[in-house]
């Protein structure tokens, strides 16, 4: 298991290759990547993410540990950034390796559902006029937890 919380950008492809290369005994690799959306008519100029150092790593480790207890997994990777990032940049990724595809898929969805609502990150959107607004949590994200 590798949990990384960092300010710097990461290379999705390089991380994906490194993760896959470390698990050639696993038949199935799933990745999820969250991206700051870059829409043509969007006033968004940046996303800022605040987090709770210490608790963030603990919460992500706890979520990943639960996933490993629940599914037959070879490994789990979570990378999540904080600080300021531009539209089009990757915010975070998770990766799962498993002998079977269903485990890899379900575990990745589980990681994402809990990461969204249980890891202490808060997003703020900075718009062209300099205004900034905290992103509100969605009821659908809280509801997503009920399926697990």
């Amino acid at each position, binding site marked *: 298991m590798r949990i990384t919380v960092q300010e710097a950008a990461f290379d999705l492809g390089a991380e994906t290759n490194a993760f896959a290369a470390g698990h050639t005994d696993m038949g199935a690799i799933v990745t999820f990547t969250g991206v700051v959306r870059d829409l043509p008519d969007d006033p968004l100029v940046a996303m800022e993410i605040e987090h709770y150092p210490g608790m963030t790593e603990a919460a992500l480790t706890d979520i990943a540990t639960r996933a490993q207890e629940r599914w037959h997994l070879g490994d789990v990777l979570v990378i999540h950034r904080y600080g300021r990032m531009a539209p089009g940049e990757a915010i975070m990724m998770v990766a799962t390796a498993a002998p079977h595809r269903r485990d890899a898929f379900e575990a990745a969805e589980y990681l994402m559902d809990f990461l969204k609502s249980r890891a202490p990150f*808060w997003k703020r959107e900075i718009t062209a006029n300099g205004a900034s607004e*905290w992103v509100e949590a969605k009821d659908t994200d809280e509801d997503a937890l009920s399926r697990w």
Partner: protein
Amino acid sequence: MDVLYFAWVRERIGLPREKVETEAATVNDLVAELRAREERYDMAFSDLSALRVALDQQLSDFDAPLAGVREVAFFPPMTGG
């Protein structure tokens, strides 16, 4: 006891963390003490349903006891991912 504030809770209260001397038995008691201090605290804690609390970096509840707790954090619902 260290009390931490994140996101708009931090902005409304105007600081990211502070030391608080308290005999509060529960999180709710601590919140009542803070609200009594100043308008900005009263505003920040006006709707507890919009807030979450962590005790020593574990998500908890407002009626949880504070005995033995060294770090309390208040923040809005998380929006990672």
